[in-house]
């Protein structure tokens, strides 16, 4: 298998990592919503923490995208 084909396949496999990030972000906001529906008064104060947690979880998906882009576009 020549190097270019291997790089393209590797880029495709790297994108599987973003599925985990999607699950992680969904977990955070799902838990936030279920907690907010139980205790709406306390929900506003924790929304900032929910955003921080979601950005941290999404960051790892972005890292896998960066690996895929590195494989595709960096010679």
């Amino acid at each position, binding site marked *: 298998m020549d190097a270019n084909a291997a790089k393209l396949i590797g880029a495709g496999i790297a994108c599987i990592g973003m599925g985990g990030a999607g699950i992680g972000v969904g977990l955070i906001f799902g838990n936030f919503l279920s907690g907010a529906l139980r205790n709406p008064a306390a929900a506003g104060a924790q929304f*900032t923490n929910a955003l*921080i947690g979601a*950005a941290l979880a999404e*960051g790892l998906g*972005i*890292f896998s*995208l*960066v690996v895929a*882009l590195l494989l595709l576009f960096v010679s």
Partner: protein
Amino acid sequence: MVNDPIHQFRIHPWLGPWNVFGHEIAFTNSNFYMGVIVAVVVGFLLLASRPKALVPGRLQSVGEMWYSLIRNMVENVLGHDGAPFFPLVFSLFSFVLVANMLGMFPYFFTVTSQVVVTASLAVFVVALVVVVGLYKHGLGWFKLFVPSGVPLAILPVISLIEVISFLSRPISLGLRLFGNMLAGHIVLKVFAGFVVSLVALGIGGVIGALAPLAMAVALTALEFLVAFLQAFVFAILTCVYLNDALHTHH
């Protein structure tokens, strides 16, 4: 004009490269847009603080919301002795926010889509955390890596893991902002390319091009949200890391 998604990230030297101490320095489009960012931030805040009304109008209200968002963030995360760091966090937040937002205009260059820019900001933040921690606690700052209540047998392993996770902070901080901006703009250009390719196929293609066009509009809205969110996350993680430096857990 080349129409692939990567061409938008090219750095063009505008004022020719000079040889300074063996390095090639030029005034590039990236430098120009950094100047535009500074002009926008300073100009907007000057304009917003001009009315000085007790009941703020719309412009002053936006300036006040911008200030109070960061002011409350610094106070909530860092407490009272974090107040000296407010100008730094405000500058970082404003720079990243306006850099991300300016990149949403067509044909403008997104300064934070260059990994060298975001990595520089991230390395600066973590270096500042180390310097502030050492200045405030002396060599006792290294107790940050030795959590209390850990059995003595596995303490070396835990400390090594803590050091590695600390060293991953500048990488993650810089890559998060870079990756979000890079990916967002690439996806936007890819869908724009779909619209152009479909329209070139005649009248049926024009009807079909409405789908990627609607997707591009939705993605642009998402990109505005991501631009603000990533600036906010950069600022709040700066506050959290500074908190580690100021209030090392004993």
